[in-house]
């Protein structure tokens, strides 16, 4: 019930001085207004109650409407796309000079909203007529679901888009998406990796970028636009990468090898300037990227490295202090251990000093050097150089080295010359870079890094004098030993060959070889390390039928150095450097006189 309203009350008063003058009317209006807003204690409680009831009703109506809107299925024209369906943007990848290695372009994908398609059979028929590579039955099934959103086809060509648009099927529309393109094709494919149709990194640096937080950003919906993302700069040089890949491809064909791989490493910063592994794949169309012969042989393959491992043994022996550059070892007769006999490939049958062992690549001499250090010392040294553990770089692909479970004296003998342990070539390259750069071991990187930054995270593994000795014997090997084919005039190259017999059916095979070559340039103050490897190269008439490393990997490395050194900014010198190895001369090492 309502109380007497102010209006009724007012009308009672009005009767007293009923005047129809404008002045009286104005005063009446004023009084009425005053009465409406006047709060009287006897009437206000019921009035407040009344107003409260009205507001309650209003809020109840609004609330019910909200709940009904929330529960009811979506009826409006707004479409609901599940977040994360659209391919998010990725940052560009550029090389060290800013050349684009991977970038995003916009494409259009066609989607359907099955609930809104009236005639599903007709829609299927029309769509498959325009997009013939669609499976009609699959599409019909997709369209007959009750889902709000299905993809019909991703990444249309502009022509297909126009054709689908012309069909004018209701409930079929387009969405712009980002598509990853690799303009350089297969060049640097193993480093870049690739991205799938949703623009998620699947392999290589692409996956690394995702793991660095891009995925979380994309999940939060922040990666619609590639322009907002800073390009990722790699340490690679596109020109050098191309030259390396081309030389390797030529060499692989020439020597009829199963596979070839190569890498150029900056020994002072640990940056990988080029990395190629053949056969490779096109990241734009990575259908065969996962075939076992397309692996990155430098990071994922583990191999018995053969004689290139002797550099590590020599460094260990010299650094231990038990052996110096003038120590000599007996290589007159084969080394017998139990029922095994160690032979030399190029037998000299005399007593050899350390440089001679290195340039003649004497298995016996190297094994004796390792024995002088002992099994435990050998193991500790290889662990320090990172040869016994999996090496992790930015690339997600890596491999665990194969190390003997029980490591006895025989293992030390064979591992000394690179048999009986299988490691990734990238790992060996990192270790050899440490042997020549003054003794700093640094993990190779595919991102740009300054020398100071690299030094900060580097660990000293050998003494600077040992490093000089290694540079000296590698240089000696290039002038008088097996590495002469890579000794390009002017760059003061040093190098080491390595030929390992592959294990076929549990036995070492004499004619299936794995050849490697490691070179440093310039040897007096190294800047770059080159590694080249061939899997099962064949002997050719011009190599006199030999398939050992010097003839194939060595020759190819020479070509690579000659071609890439100007690109790398290596200055040729035509007069030999003054006193390149002062300590070696002081010690009177073999070959200095």
């Amino acid at each position, binding site marked *: 019930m309502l109380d007497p309203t102010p209006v009724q009350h007012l009308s009672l008063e009005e009767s007293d001085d009923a005047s129809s003058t404008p002045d009286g009317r104005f005063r009446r209006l004023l009084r009425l207004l005053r009465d409406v807003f006047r709060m009287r204690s006897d009437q206000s409680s019921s009035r407040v109650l009344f107003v409260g009831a009205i507001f309650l009703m209003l809020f109840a109506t609004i609330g019910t409407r909200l709940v009904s809107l929330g529960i009811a299925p979506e009826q409006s024209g707004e479409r609901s796309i599940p977040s994360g369906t659209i391919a998010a943007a990725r940052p560009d990848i550029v090389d060290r000079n800013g050349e684009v290695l991977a*970038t995003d*372009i916009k494409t259009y994908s066609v989607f359907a909203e099955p609930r809104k398609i009236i005639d599903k059979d007709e829609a299927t028929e029309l769509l498959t007529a325009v997009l013939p590579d669609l499976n009609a039955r699959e599409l019909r099934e997709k369209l007959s679901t009750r889902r709000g959103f299905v993809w019909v086809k991703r990444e249309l060509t502009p022509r297909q888009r126009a054709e689908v648009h012309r069909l004018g099927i209701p409930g079929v529309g387009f969405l712009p998406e980002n598509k990853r393109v690799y*303009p*350089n094709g297969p060049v640097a494919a193993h480093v870049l990796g690739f991205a799938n149709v949703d623009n998620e990194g699947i392999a290589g640096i692409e996956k690394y970028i995702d793991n660095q937080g891009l995925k979380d950003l994309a999940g939060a919906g922040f990666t619609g636009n590639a322009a907002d993302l800073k390009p990722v700069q790699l340490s690679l040089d596109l020109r050098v990468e191309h030259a390396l890949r081309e030389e390797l491809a030529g060499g692989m064909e020439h020597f009829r090898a199963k596979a070839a791989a190569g890498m150029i490493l900056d020994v002072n910063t640990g940056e990988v300037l080029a990395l190629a592994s053949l056969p490779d794949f096109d990241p734009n169309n990575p259908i065969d990227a996962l075939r076992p012969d397309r692996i990155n042989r430098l990071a994922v393959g583990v191999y018995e490295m053969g004689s290139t491992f002797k550099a590590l043994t020599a460094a260990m022996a010299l650094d231990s202090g038990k052996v110096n550059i003038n120590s000599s070892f007996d290589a007159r007769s084969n080394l017998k251990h139990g029922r095994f006999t160690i032979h030399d490939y190029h037998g000299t049958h005399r007593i050899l000093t350390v440089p001679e062992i290195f340039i003649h690549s004497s298995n016996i001499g190297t094994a004796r050097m390792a024995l002088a250090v002992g099994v435990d010392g050998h193991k500790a040294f290889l662990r320090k150089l990172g040869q016994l553990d999996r090496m992790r770089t930015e690339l997600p692909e890596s491999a665990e080295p194969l190390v003997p479970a029980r490591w006895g004296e025989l293992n030390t003998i064979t591992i000394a010359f690179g048999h009986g342990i299988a490691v990734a070539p990238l790992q060996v390259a990192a270790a050899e870079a440490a042997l020549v750069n003054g003794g700093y071991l640094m993990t190779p990187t595919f991102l740009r890094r300054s020398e100071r930054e690299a030094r900060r995270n580097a660990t000293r593994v050998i003494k600077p004098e040992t490093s000089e000795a290694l540079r000296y014997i590698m240089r000696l090997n290039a002038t008088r030993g097996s590495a002469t084919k890579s000794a390009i005039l002017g760059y003061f190259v040093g190098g080491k060959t390595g030929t390992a017999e592959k294990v076929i059916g549990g036995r070492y095979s004499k004619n299936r070889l794995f050849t490697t070559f490691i070179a440093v340039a310039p040897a007096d103050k190294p800047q770059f390390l080159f590694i080249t490897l061939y899997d099962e190269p064949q002997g050719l008439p011009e190599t006199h039928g030999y398939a050992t490393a010097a003839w194939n990997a060595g020759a190819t490395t020479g070509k690579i150095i000659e071609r890439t050194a100007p690109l790398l900014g290596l*200055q040729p010198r035509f007069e030999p450097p003054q006193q390149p190895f002062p300590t070696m001369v002081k010690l009177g090492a073999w070959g200095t006189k």
Partner: protein
Amino acid sequence: MIRFLHIVAIAALVVSAVYVYSVKYDTILLAERVAKLKNQVQREKDSIAVLKAEWQRLNRPERVQALADTHLDLQPLSVLNIGRFDELPQRQPKTDEIGRKLETLGLGMPTSTPREALAADARTPSSSRSR
């Protein structure tokens, strides 16, 4: 007085309503233009990205080398082609070469032109022969 005030108030109301509506429509129009321009900028950016990718695609070392091999007469760079600054000869002290040559030929002095001879026989030998 009151009526006048009412009229003024209503007029002010109408004017302000019209003004507000015009401002609102202007804003909508401008917002539409902004959206259109933003769209256009995005389209331009997208096409720039496509062109950049295409540029890199066309300039990839593989293709450039294939073209250079067929159309250019260039050889691979050899170590011997690389020169250095200290191989360049030293710059010679600056001299007046022409003046020195004139001096050695004895032509440094001003010469008197044989004016009369010229006036007498201003013909080339060939033209005289043809006569």
